[in-house]
């Protein structure tokens, strides 16, 4: 089923820099080139989401559309530890995950446009991106529903004797869902015997749609909820790429050894509405958003790179222009792509000939 298309044919994904983070000469922290590569990826993701928002406003993109803007450092940092054979699962806010793992902006934008050239042939749309060839196993729309799936995949990885891991993202709203409780308990139970390398990445962006963490639970230290399953955990500043990278590399490396689950609560914020149709945003103040925009993960990283002298203002402009060109190309591709073949309507319901 997977691997029908070759990476070559599909192109390079976002940015030039490889996914791996190379250490700097000083031994700790990634080197400048690596960071610049991440910076570039984050730029492309941000501009990609802006373009998607425009596509939605102009009626070219339908359904639900959930943007990752403001949270880029989380996926960028964690997925930098990806190794072939690993499996990545998330909810519906999934564009960045697909792009970071190697899906091309063209494939993803075409999917949002519902075109036959889309990443899943126009069948799934924004919420259901899949790129199995690159380890991205979806892309799910039901809050909490994907959590047990990731836990099962982690069992399979150890059952096959690999040292691969599952990276499983969930939101602050999903943690109150029964599927989380049941999935996390299984991860803790199976992990006791080294049979469950599931990395729970709890992206706490403060709101589940319009409901703040405080209005969803009386116990707001969300990562501490993993204590109920004997799953060790820590918090990380999800807007600081360097902090995420340090955490991700350390945690994933040890999980490959132990086969045990781990949880990280990444404190972050979505600087855009919950979904493209969430206009009013009555549940939060303009000031709060403004405050967080000051902590924009791209801005923070940009500042660091300028400070280090890893980038000049001029180079930043170039990178922005390049990112814009990449996204414009993706939009042009999506616009000009054909609708799906109507015969696709009833394929992939069951296996061919089954």
């Amino acid at each position, binding site marked *: 089923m997977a691997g029908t298309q070759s990476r070559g044919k599909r192109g390079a994904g976002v940015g030039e820099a490889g996914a791996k983070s190379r250490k700097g000469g000083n031994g700790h922290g990634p080197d400048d080139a690596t960071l610049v590569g991440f910076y570039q990826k984050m730029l492309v993701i941000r501009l990609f989401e802006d373009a998607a928002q425009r596509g939605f406003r102009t009626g070219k993109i*339908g*359904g*639900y559309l959930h943007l990752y803007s403001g949270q880029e450092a989380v996926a960028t940092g964690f997925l930098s530890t990806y190794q072939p054979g690993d499996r990545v699962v998330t909810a519906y806010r999934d564009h960045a995950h697909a792009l970071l793992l190697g899906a091309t902006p063209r494939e993803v934008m075409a*999917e949002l446009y*519902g*075109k*036959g050239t*889309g990443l899943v042939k*126009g*069948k*799934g*749309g*924004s*919420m*259901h991106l899949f790129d199995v060839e690159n380890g991205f196993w979806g892309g*799910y*729309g*039901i*809050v*909490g*529903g994907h959590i047990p799936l990731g836990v099962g995949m982690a069992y399979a990885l150890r059952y096959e004797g690999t040292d691969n891991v599952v990276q499983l993202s969930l939101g602050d*709203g*999903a943690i*109150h*869902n*029964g*599927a989380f409780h049941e999935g996390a308990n299984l991860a803790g139970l199976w992990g006791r015997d080294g049979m469950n390398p599931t990395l729970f990445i709890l992206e706490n962006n403060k709101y*589940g*749609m*319009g*409901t703040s963490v405080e*209005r*969803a*639970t009386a116990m707001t230290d969300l990562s501490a909820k993993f204590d109920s399953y004997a799953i060790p955990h820590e918090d990380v500043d999800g807007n600081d790429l360097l902090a995420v990278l340090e955490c991700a590399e350390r945690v994933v490396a040890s999980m490959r050894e132990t086969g045990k689950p781990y949880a990280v609560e990444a404190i972050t914020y979505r600087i855009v509405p919950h979904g493209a149709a969430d206009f*009013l945003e*009555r*549940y939060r103040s303009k000031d709060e958003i403004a405050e967080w925009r000051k902590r924009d993960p791209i801005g923070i990283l940009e500042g660091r790179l300028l400070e280090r002298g890893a980038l000049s203002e001029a180079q930043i402009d170039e990178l922005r222009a390049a990112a814009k060109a990449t996204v414009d190309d993706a939009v042009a591709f999506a616009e000009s792509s054909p*609708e*799906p073949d*109507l015969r*696709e*309507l*009833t394929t992939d*319901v069951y296996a061919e000939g089954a």
Partner: protein
Amino acid sequence: MPVITYREALKSAMAEEMERDERVVLLGEDIGVYGGTHLVTDGLIDRFGPRRVIDTPIAEGGFTGAAIGMAMAGMRPIVEMMTWNFSFQAVDQIIQNAAKVRYFSGGQASVPLVIRGPNGGGVQLSAQHTHSLEGFYGHFPGLKVVSPATPHDVKGMMIEAIRDPDPVIFLEAGALYGTKGEVPAEEYTVPFGKARIAREGSDVTLVGYGRQVNLLLKVAETLASEGVSAEVVDLRSIRPFDVETLVASVTKTHRAVAVQEQWRWFSVASEVAALLQEFAFDELDAPVERVSGVEAPAPYSRSLEQAAFPSEQQIVKAVRRVLYREN
């Protein structure tokens, strides 16, 4: 009569009952502060306060179960499923508790509960967010299931549902929230178990409910121009089901086409065909035709989605078949 939208009709039904009856409360995700993702409950938290308009965590099973407990304790909760697609997480509560508590308690407990929300597709929400669950819930004794198509019916049936002593699965036509229609200013209810003749005709009976009703009315127009007089039956209520009105119509027309967005197997249209062959066997001049959603999960792409649901052409073709004018 005032003309208001399906959404306004729904909201006014709930607000009026909340004014009349303290026991009526609302529970659901983002129905309060956020205003409701479809704005059906917009402003109600300001009018009735957070103890009667209760924003919940994302836990459909939990808050539906809690609402069942509230109902057993004498309250009259109305649960919003942000969309019915999320009700799969509450199926155990709905089927194992709400539908059965009265029975297995030997009549000591009752569950005056309404569960409401948008149902059906049409806006590219794709596979996990597109379901039409009338038959799915209608199968279970202990539940009542309705699917109103007009502002008039959605208001009258919501008031009926709130006052009903048993659990009501209230399936709103999500695609119709913005549609307008006449709604009486004075208090009224629409009883369950009574279908509505949405258009009179003599040559063929078109059977549907929810947003299909509007499609059927368009088809009837088209057919009229071909000289075919189609009667449109809006079922409105799926359980209890109005067999009489259906049989009476077919006794007049001798032909029927059942149209639904849901899938074909073990569905509402299956039941319509089964009932007609059972109660109008000698009246039928042709097999009952069924036009249903295509046998696949709902696709995202607009062009694919349009092809996935019953179309005017499909229905017209089906009518021609029952009239033996085409095969």
